[in-house]
Each structure stands twice: as C-alpha cells, then as structure tokens.
C-alpha cells in the first residue's frame, strides 16, 4: 500500500530541500510534486477511482496560476477530496493567511523555518504524525 505525499511547491529549491528533508528523515513514501495550483487540482480531480488519493497534501500558499488558498477551497468543495488531510507549508506567518487557511479547513499550518535544522525537525514531525499516527477514513467512505 503506497502512501503518496502530494507536494505542491513552485520553488525548485524548496522542492529539493523538502525532498532532502524527507529523505534525511527516512520517509520513503512516493512524493508527487505539483508546481502550481492548477497542476495540483488536475492531479487530485482526475476522477474518483481512477487514481488513489494521496495520504497527505503539503501545500504552499504562494503559487502561480491558482494560489494555495484557492486549491484548498477546491479540495474542500469537491466531495471526492473533501476529507483529504492538507498541511499548509509556507513561508509566511501572516495572521490573515493563518485565519483563511483554517477557515477553509486546513488540517495544519506549518511555517518553513529558515534554519534547515529546524526544517528537518518539522518534516520529521509531520511525517510521523500524518503518515504514521493519523488515521483517515477509507476511500469513498460516506458519512
């Protein structure tokens, strides 16, 4: 059973660092990278049943085309994806981003620290929590 991580990130440097941090933490799950909001939504809405949903979405907010908050809104508005765990992983800690994200139903909000050591630690915690500890309802489960 593969537990896919969907990383939505436009900055290739951040992508590389995130992948490195995952590897350093021995998180071997398949990582799908979407480089903008449109791509992410295209991946997620290809259709129920045709593709497995990721275990977790790591979502940057500042994205080209469709921004992260819009992606989050769409995920929550679509029946197929509305229970998908989404962790906002972004640079800012602006109050309004935090509030909007939670209002839109983000499961978690993590600011990427400048210090790579701290980032490593954050990714480790995220992996442990969302990929191991956290339980999600089965696919297509109804209320």
């Amino acid at each position, binding site marked *: 059973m593969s537990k896919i991580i969907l990383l939505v990130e436009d*900055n290739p*440097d*951040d992508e590389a*660092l995130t992948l*490195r941090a995952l590897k350093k933490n021995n998180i071997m799950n398949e990582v799908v990278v979407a480089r903008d909001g449109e791509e992410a939504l295209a991946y997620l809405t290809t259709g129920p049943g045709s593709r497995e949903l990721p275990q977790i979405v790591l979502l940057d*907010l*500042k994205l080209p085309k469709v921004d992260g908050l819009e992606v989050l809104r769409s995920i929550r508005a679509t029946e197929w994806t509305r229970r998908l765990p989404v962790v906002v992983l*972004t*640079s*800012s*800690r*602006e*109050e309004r981003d935090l509030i909007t994200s939670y209002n839109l139903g983000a499961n978690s909000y993590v600011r*990427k*620290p*400048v*210090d*790579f*050591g701290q*980032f490593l630690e954050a990714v480790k915690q995220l992996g442990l929590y969302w990929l191991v500890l956290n339980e999600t309802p089965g696919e297509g489960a109804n209320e």
Partner: protein
Amino acid sequence: MSPGVELTGHTSLTRVARFSCFGVLAICAAVVFGTAAEFPRLANPFGGMTMKANTALILALFAIALLLELSTRRWTRAAKGFHAVAGAASLVTFLQYVLNVRFGIDELIVPDRISVVGSLPAGRMAPTTGFALLALGVGGLWPERVARGSIWCPRQGLALVAAAAGFASLTDLLFVTDLPSALYRQMALTTALCLMLLSFSMLTTRPESVLMRVFVGELLGARLARQLMPAVFVTPVILGWLRLEGERRGLYDTGYGVALMVVATTVLLGVLVVAGAESINRADRERRLYIAQLQGAQSDLRQANAFLDAVFENLPTMVFVKEAKRLTFTRLNRKAEEIIGVPRSKLLGLGDKDFFPAEQAAFFESKDREALNRGELVDITEEQLRTATGTRWLHTKKVPIRDDDGTPLFLLGISEDITDQKLRAEELRSAKDVAESNSRELEAFSYSVSHDLRAPLRSIDGFSQALLEDCFDQLGPDGQDSLKRIRANAQRMGELIDDLLALSKVTRAELRTEACDVTLVARETGETLRQQQPGREVVFEVEEGLRAVADPRLLRTVFENLLGNAWKFSSRKGQAKVSVARGPVENGKVTVCVRDNGAGFDQKYANKLFGAFQRLHAMKDFEGTGIGLATVQRIIHRHGGRVWAEGIVGEGASFYFSLPEATAAPRTT
C-alpha cells in the same frame, strides 16, 4: 376713545329714557281721558294747575317720536313726522300768545270743561309750556348730523332749554303759589314733570354727544358728574325753599335771607370743590405714580432691548429676521452682513431673490414657508449660499415667530457658517484615503517580504547544510567554517525579517483597548520565558494590582520584549533578578517599571535604545536584532503613553512605560 372707557351704561340710560317716555304717555293718557270724561281727579290728581288736553296730546306725540328714535331699529323718519306735528301744534299755540289771536286750536280735539276758569282761554296751555314744547319740537327736527366731539349740538341745547323751563316752573310751584301773575308763567305740575322727562329722553337719543358723554362710562369724571348732578338740582331748590320759609316765618328779613343763602351756597359749593378736587388729586397722584412706573418700565425695557441688541449683534452666528408675509429682511446682525457680503442698509426691506440666484432664493423661501406654515423649527443641516465672495456652506435653523393667535409675524433664522468645517472634513477624508492606501501598500509590502525574502534565505541555509553534509571532507576546516558563517547569517537575517514584520504589524494593527490586568500579563509572560529557558534561575517578582487601559495583545508584546531583554541581559549574573513594579505617577497615567540586575547600559546612550536596529551590546555578548525596544516604543506611543529607560553599566537597567489608567475592573484576564 380707548377700549375699556367705552360708553358703558349707555344701554341702561336708554332703558331709563324709554321708561320715562312710557311714563309720559301714561300721564298724558290720564289727562286726555280725564278731560274728555270730565273727571278732574284723573286729569289733575295733585290739584293746582291742570294739564291741558292739547298739551297732553303734544307731549304724547313727542314721547312716541322719542320712543321711535330710542328703539333699536331707529325709525328716525317716522320720529321726524311726530316731532313735526307736535312742533307745529306748539308753534300755533305759542303764536296765539305772540300775535294775540285765536286759531281755534285750544279745544280742537277735546273740549275743556274741567279747568278752573281764569284769564287763560279754556283748553289753552300756559305760554311757557308753549315755548318749551316749541323748543322740543325744533330740537327734534334739527338735522341729525353733528360733527363728532363738537360741543355745538343744537338739539341737546334746545332739549336743555325745555328742561330748564320745566325745572323753573317746578321750582316756581314749590316756592310761589298764590300770585295771579303765576297764571301765565306756571305750567301744571305734571306738565313740568313730563317736559323734564322728555328733555332727558331727547338728550339720551344722542349719548355720543359731548354733553352726554361726560356722564357715561367708568372714567372718574363721569362717575363724579353722575354723583354730583342730583345735588346740583336738589341743593338750590332746598336752599331757596329754606330761605323763603325762614322769611315767611319772620326769622330774618329778605337781605339776611339772601346772605344766608349765599353763605350756604358758598359752603356747599366749597364742599363740592374740595370733594371734587380731592378725588381728582387722588386720581392724578395715581396717574403720576403710574406714569413714573411706566417710565421706569420703559427704561428697563430699553436696557433689556439694548442688552438683547448687543447679544444679537455680536453673536458669532448669522442671525436674521424676515417679515412673514413678503419674506423681506427686517433685521440682520453683523455676522449676517459678513457672510452675505452685503451691508444691511442694502438688505433691509428686500428678500432673498434680490440677492441670490433664482433657484437658490426659491429654496430658501420654500424653507421659510415650511417653518411658518408648520409653526415649528426647521433644521437645514447643510445649505449652499453663493455670494460675491464665493460659496459658503451654512447650517441653518428657521423658527417661526407668531402672535398670540398663531398668525405668523416673523421668521427668525440662525445660520452657522460650516464652510471651514466642511473643508476640514474633506481634507481629513482625503488624508484618510491617502493613509489607507499607504497602509494597504505597506501591508502588501510586508506580505511580500515575509514570503519572498525568506525563501532565498531558506535555500542558502538549506543548501549550505547540504554542502556541509555531502562534502564535509572535501571542504576542509576553513570551508566548513565559512559555510557555518553563511548559515548563521542567513538565520540571523530571517530573524531580522521576522522582527521587522512584527514591528510593522504593531503599526498596522487596529488598537483594541480595554482595561487590562497588567500584573497578570507580566506574570504569564515571565512564566513562558521560564519554561523556554528551564536552565535559568531567575528571581521574578511582579507587583500586585497593576492595571491599565491597553490592547491586551500589544501589551503582551511589550512584556515579551522587555522581560525577554531582562532575562537575556541578566544571564551573566549569578543571581538574576527581574521585577515588574509600579513606577512614578504621572497625571492620569499608570507607570510600570521593568527592572533587572543585568548588564545595564551607559545612560548617555539611553536615547539610542529605542531606535530600530540600535544595539548597545556586541553580538557575541548578547544576541538580538535591535528591534524589540523600537517595537515597545511604538506600541506605547500608540497608546498615548511614554517610554524611557535608566541604566548603570554592570548593575542593571530599568525600563519605564506609561499607559492610561484603568478605572473599571479588567474585563478579561
């Protein structure tokens, strides 16, 4: 004639006159029937002279004429007819004496068989009677129109002549009875009485004549005249009678009798003069007192008016008064001239349309009418006034001024010039717009900073670490050191960015103040620091009961910075001590002092402490960005407070800040 002294008593006078006429009619009827039926007791109940049937008929005609005139319908024409017939009959009789002929009128209607046969022909009246009746007839026929207020009133004069003849005969009857000559001058007692009654009635038909006016009404003179008039009739009669009686009884001779009568008349006239004079004096004193009071009141009124004028004139608002019908200006004050820009000499008597554009004048006048018609204040919060000096904005109140019946008399207008206020409000609005747009730009900038500036730093740090890990051996000690320095600087820049964002957030955030428990906030912040740095031993004391009005979130930021500093700079001390206490009192402001026994600072650099990026310590001694105190200062300033610091190198620092005092107990903790 002023109201209140109208001819009151006029109607009762008329009533008495009518009653008199009916009395005369009754007497005359008795005489005619008595004569015709040859029943002397009916024609002449008092004995002496008998009224002749002709006399009775003529008197009756006069009585009827006067009754007609006295009636409310005023049948003057018919009355004239009766007067004419009666007057003609009197004239014919009188002419008989003058011409010494007989016209055969004496027993024309009723034969006289009851009169005492004397020298007068049967049925003929005495010459005096004829004369008096003739006077009445002429008076009755005299043309109506008499100039109002004129003393010349022939009708009244002739009536008085008739009355005088009657009165003379009455007095004569009283004094002298037996003289043969009396035959020609004496009337019957009833004739004299009837003549006087008719004369009185004739006088009464013109109550507005000067003669009658004297007696009518509530004026003091009229009252006096009414009171004294009977005495005027009765007194001489009594005196004369007394004199004659005295003489007849032989108490004194004629000369002394006249002397006594003169003295008595003098005394009585004197009494009348004194009584009349006293009553006039009393009235005059009252009148003078009243006039003096009136003058005093007028003077007070003038002063009050002068005071009101001064207030009116010097009010800082425009005040104007318009006449209610034509809406023309009747009064304006100085400010009104100033605002309209036209001197009042040119405004008075003219209306809005003479000065302002038609459309505007129509608006003003419609509002005037609204106030006048509704009878209440009309408030026009904003109206434009285009004058020669430019457009002005006014806030105007229009108040109707009405008389006691509610009829509008004037329109009072009070206008405040709000032009400056309006301009200022507009300036303020545009300034606010600018500030808002600045604030939006600043926000966009900070947002961009927090996202875009941090991302490269993350890459620098992350890839340096990657390089260190992947190529540790190839780098050698110098290379490794360089990379470590690169990472340290990247991280420090991240902190700087964060602190700058915090500082800008303090400026941007909306201030939501409430009464705060300062003691509690300080204690909680200290507790957090203690948990973050468990290795530190800090003696931390907070004074009880500190309260202030502040934004609780920003107050927390203040303590985070100040206590964070205190913690940091006391880290080299064996026994670190940090305290929060009440500082010196400023008016209306609570001062809080945060003190530590740490590294302190040189007082001469105290003014540099609160600038952004200002640091008094080397990085190697104490870490920091130099933004914390700038943030504190900005927060305190936004609360209207003051912040300052005292320090001694090596001994510690004290940071003071003041905040508005909280009167109520804190809502939240």
